[in-house]
């Protein structure tokens, strides 16, 4: 093709330099990459995916099956960008070559901005062709909130290539007026925006190219691409129709394109061939010949398989003196040395003629684009006149309009768009009288009868060069092989031949594939149908799906009020549930083990402080609170006195452990319940579920207060001395403030602090809870006032080591999904006097039988062996088959005991203390001894200091 000296919607005063496959080329502002390449004389854009045949551009829009490029962006690369809808920008760098339909990704991060936008509207119109524009105009005039999305670079659709007039104006002028009217009325018009995924309840995912269609330097901080989540009260699918190619021998040569594309390149981009031949089965194809002729292009003829058509367009062609090859077909082509089309073989009633041409425009007719309708299983039926599927009935809340609805002329499409808008608005309660909003008009056109033609049988019988799907290099021979292998179902044909499996889902190949399969198997076309359309209609990159949810915006990271205090002490953090917790506070030069060693010995020998604000906290109150907690917790929490606490556990209905925690009775009808960090939300939901579904009449109110309080545990033999300094007015002696007692008072100047004598280390410990933001006051005061006592901040690693030494479990870590309180060594807490959730299952003998996986302690035989969580425990290392007795649930270096100890679940473990097992570590396994879970201070002497 060559650029005409004038015309087109391009700005010749603003040339743009770009590179394609390393070649420096020039196009104009207003070009697409495809038109710029054609204008620069690049007809051969690359080679096909498996046969390596030269290929060119075949369309000017969404039908494209050949023209895909790899586009370089700052520090990244975008694969499989459709050339016909990529606006040219200064400095664009694209690759085609042999990779035109493959694409690749680069290692490393993509720093481009991709974001998301939620949008709501009364009416979403998909497609801004004649029907979509008519619908959107009417709806916005009626005052509705309207969104109009268009996949192409500009609105207008078929109006941009057709010479029709609308309301007496040239179509292109009408389109720009309509766009301006829409914009001014608040309608959001998105271009380069593909409705990719249709969701239930009128949801639509739309992928829009914004910065990606501009030079990086001109993107101005805009996102490369944006994913819209649209929710509309009504949707109009005005997705138009795609032109269908015709399959014949060597139909893939660069220079062969669709008639609509030929017209679009002429009208929008002033690109024309030297000699343009037309091969069409419908009147519409004549437009290409007429337009070329009017532009001074030599048109050697129009090949039409029909007998002379009676329509207006063929009549105009005859009047213009164009040569008509009636009852003729193109049966093959030949190419020059570079692969470009140079002649077409036309077979007619009087034999075969070779016709010289550099462009052959082909039209097998137009077929509705129904991908979005089909994604939601919308029904279609075969229309014999169009030779394609048309919508049977639209889905609830949706309307299909224009060419997508089978209205193929501009006049019909405009009217159908307005009709759909009226109906859609009525469903939203907006009535639009016909007089108030006239339907745009376009002159009527008389059409001749259609003839549906899919394939021209190759005269020499070789159909290995008759391409059905250019993207996948699927030929008629491939379909013949599939049918020969006994495959008949079109979905199976698709998988066997790969027809329609390309990035464009074989949009312009599927009807031909179905019809040719039908003729090969002797079945009606309607019975074979086409392969389905699945979401997304266009490939979406993972980048656009993830959007801004990257790094710190990916998963919420919760921090306690003490976070900065920990950081100031050089803490190393680790994630625990969504929380970021301090795992340890290493001193310069310390190894992990040395830090845990030092911190552990400080707690066992002096005093340590730890931030336990992440523990779940729940306020439970009301006249029935005692009854309620008694029903849920395994032990007699109802008998806890005011000012006292009790360690207890919750079971699922099946008797398995849900969580454990401390229940504190603050007042007669008021409790403060703690949960483990990871179960805070679960326990609240569990309580609400019972209250809302089973016991709604009970007067109990459950309120999560985790973030109301910061909690710091002060633990160790000198903890009492430190708490006495922090809370001088509080009686902290063992007699006045015994284990499991709770007091309220002033701590470090903070009034109303709650102090509870509970311990997760086995040491004398006080848990101090104060309002969330005041946590740092307590922390700082403890560090300052405890300096001479050797106060040491300790982290999660040491907290773990201390609780493992004491055999304190973490539900979910030291238990399995089916572990009962009996299995976890908590059988002592199960009340014999009352009923509670899970009790009936626990009372079954099976829940208490001997061989169950039971909690035990394990001790490594030597100082070196780390006990790794999750490691299997076997009877003998060499045994085959291995009999797995259990697994390690927790392991740590015990500074206090000078060796590695752990907890494990072992079959019948409670009766196996003293037995030797082997952890599957290393080649020979590591020897461990099964012991009591309580490794340290079995009598609990240290609890009271």
């Amino acid at each position, binding site marked *: 093709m060559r650029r005409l000296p004038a015309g087109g919607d391009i700005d010749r005063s603003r040339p743009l330099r770009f590179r394609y496959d390393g070649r420096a080329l020039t196009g104009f502002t207003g070009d697409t990459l495809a038109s710029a390449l054609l204008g620069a004389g690049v007809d051969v854009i690359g080679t096909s995916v498996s046969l390596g045949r030269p290929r060119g551009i075949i369309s000017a829009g969404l039908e494209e099956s050949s023209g895909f490029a790899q586009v370089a962006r700052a520090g990244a690369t975008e694969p499989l960008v459709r050339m016909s809808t990529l606006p040219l920008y200064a400095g664009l760098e694209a690759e085609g070559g042999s990779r035109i339909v493959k694409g690749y990704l680069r290692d490393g991060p993509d720093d481009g901005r991709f974001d998301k936008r939620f949008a709501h509207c009364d009416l979403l119109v998909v497609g801004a062709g004649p029907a979509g524009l008519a619908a959107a105009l009417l709806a916005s005039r009626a005052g509705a909130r309207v*969104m109009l999305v268009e996949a192409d670079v500009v609105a207008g659709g078929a109006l941009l290539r057709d010479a029709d007039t609308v309301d007496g104006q040239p179509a292109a002028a009408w389109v720009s007026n309509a766009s301006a009217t829409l914009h001014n009325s608040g309608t959001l018009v998105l271009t380069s925006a593909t409705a990719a995924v249709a969701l239930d309840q009128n949801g639509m995912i739309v992928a829009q190219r914004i910065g990606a269609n501009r030079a990086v330097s001109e993107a101005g901080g805009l996102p490369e691409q944006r994913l819209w989540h649209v929710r509309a009260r009504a949707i109009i699918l005005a997705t138009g129709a795609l032109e269908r190619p015709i399959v014949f021998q060597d139909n893939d040569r660069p220079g062969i394109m669709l008639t609509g594309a030929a017209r679009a390149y002429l009208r929008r981009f002033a690109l024309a061939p030297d000699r343009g031949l037309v091969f069409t089965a419908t009147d519409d194809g004549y437009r290409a010949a007429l337009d070329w002729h009017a532009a001074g292009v030599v048109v050697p003829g129009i090949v039409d398989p029909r007998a002379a058509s009676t329509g207006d367009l063929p009549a105009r062609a005859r009047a213009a003196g164009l040569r008509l090859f009636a009852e003729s077909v193109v049966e093959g082509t030949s190419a020059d040395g570079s692969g470009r089309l140079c002649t077409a073989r036309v077979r007619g009633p009087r034999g075969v003629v070779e016709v010289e041409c550099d462009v052959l425009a082909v039209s097998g007719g137009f077929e509705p684009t129904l991908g979005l309708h089909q994604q939601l299983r919308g029904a279609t039926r075969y229309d014999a006149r169009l030779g394609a599927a048309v919508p049977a009935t639209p889905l609830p809340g949706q309307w299909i309009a224009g060419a997508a609805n089978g209205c193929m002329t501009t006049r019909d499409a405009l009217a159908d768009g307005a009709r759909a808008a009226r109906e859609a608005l009525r469903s939203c309660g907006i009535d639009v009288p016909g007089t108030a909003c006239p339907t745009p008009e376009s002159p009527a056109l008389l059409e001749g009868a259609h003839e549906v033609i899919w394939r021209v049988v190759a005269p020499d019988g070789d159909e290995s060069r008759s391409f059905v799907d250019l993207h996948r290099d699927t030929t008629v021979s491939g379909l013949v092989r599939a049918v020969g292998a006994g495959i008949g179902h079109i979905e199976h044909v698709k998988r066997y031949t790969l027809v329609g499996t390309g990035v464009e889902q074989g949009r312009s190949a599927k009807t031909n594939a179905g019809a040719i399969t039908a003729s090969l198997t002797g079945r009606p076309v309607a019975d074979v149908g086409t392969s389905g359309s699945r979401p997304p209609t266009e490939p979406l990159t993972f980048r656009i799906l993830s959007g*801004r949810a990257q790094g710190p*915006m990916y998963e*919420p990271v919760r921090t306690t009020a003490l976070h*900065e205090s920990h950081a100031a002490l050089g803490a190393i953090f680790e994630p625990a549930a969504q929380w970021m917790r301090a795992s340890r506070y290493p001193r310069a030069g310390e190894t992990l083990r040395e830090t845990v060693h030092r911190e552990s010995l400080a707690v066992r020998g002096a005093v340590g402080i730890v931030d336990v604000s992440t523990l779940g906290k729940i306020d439970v109150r009301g006249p029935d609170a005692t009854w309620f907690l008694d029903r849920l917790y395994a032990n007699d929490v109802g008998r806890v006195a005011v000012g006292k606490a009790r360690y207890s556990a919750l079971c699922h209905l099946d008797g398995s452990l849900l969580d454990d925690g401390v229940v504190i009775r603050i007042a007669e009808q008021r409790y403060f319940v703690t949960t483990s960090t990871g179960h805070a939300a679960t326990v609240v939901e569990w309580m609400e579920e019972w209250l809302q579904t089973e016991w709604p009449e009970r007067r109990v109110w459950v*309120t999560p207060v985790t973030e109301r309080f910061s909690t710091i545990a002060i633990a160790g033999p000198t903890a009492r001395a430190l708490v006495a300094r922090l809370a001088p007015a509080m009686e902290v002696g063992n007699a006045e403030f015994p284990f499991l007692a709770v007091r309220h008072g002033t701590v470090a100047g903070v009034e109303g602090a709650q102090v509870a004598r509970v311990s997760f280390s086995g040491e004398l410990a006080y848990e101090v809870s104060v309002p*969330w933001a005041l946590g740092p006051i307590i922390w700082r005061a403890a560090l300052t006032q405890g300096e001479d006592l050797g106060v040491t901040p300790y982290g999660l690693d040491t907290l773990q080591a201390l609780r493992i030494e004491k055999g304190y479990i973490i539900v979910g870590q030291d238990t399995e999904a089916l572990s009962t309180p009996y299995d976890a060594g908590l059988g002592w807490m199960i009340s014999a006097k009352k009923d509670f959730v899970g009790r009936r299952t626990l009372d079954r003998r099976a829940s208490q039988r001997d061989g169950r996986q039971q909690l035990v302690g394990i001790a490594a035989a030597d100082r070196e062996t780390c006990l790794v969580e999750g490691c299997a425990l076997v009877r003998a290392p060499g045994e085959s088959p291995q009999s797995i007795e259990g697994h390690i649930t927790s392991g740590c270096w015990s500074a206090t005991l000078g060796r590695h100890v752990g907890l494990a679940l072992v079959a019948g473990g409670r009766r196996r203390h003293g037995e030797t097992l082997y952890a599957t570590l290393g080649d020979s396994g590591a020897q461990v001894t099964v012991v009591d879970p309580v490794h340290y201070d079995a009598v609990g002497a240290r609890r009271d200091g």
Partner: protein
Amino acid sequence: MADGSPLAAHLGALISKASFDDARLTPGARVDLLSVRARRSAVQRVATALGQESLPPPNACRATILGDCFWLRPDEWLFATVPGGAEAAMKTVEPHLLDDGAVIDVSGSRIILELTGPRTRDVLSSCCPLDLDPSVFEPGRCAQSIIGKVSVLLHLVDATPRWHLFVPPSYVDYVVRWLADGIEGARAEQENALATTPHSSPVRMLP
């Protein structure tokens, strides 16, 4: 948490860097918070005691003598009262609940972020799925929704628009990052004159 701001220093820097005239994020006023739980029988007593005809209906906020009152769920309302006012407010409400409800001091369990400016709907629609169009979400409305993945209570204070987001303190870092990022995006859109939201025609041409 320097200078009495409830935000960590790095977040303060983040939002002051991102904010511009048309979308500004700042820490909101400090408040004490009360959760009032009331069965049907107690709702009217509490409303009367506060000089109101009723407590706010679903997804609404009303000003009361105890400060703003937000509907949270069929039997729960949240009161945002002056700092240090929780105890007095509890004493006002508690006697009217009898055994049909409870009032719980939840001060500090959410902090307020304030987002103001004409571009804030764009900011919020980058991370919050609600329809915030003025025709649907008018001043005085509140709703519980998400910012990114985190639940927040969103309140439209006035038509500026001025929004208050009640965010659990542990999630503030995450929420502020999302909002600051949304503000950056909105600023780029403004600078590039990019249309972003569909809204109803300013002049309805039909009855």
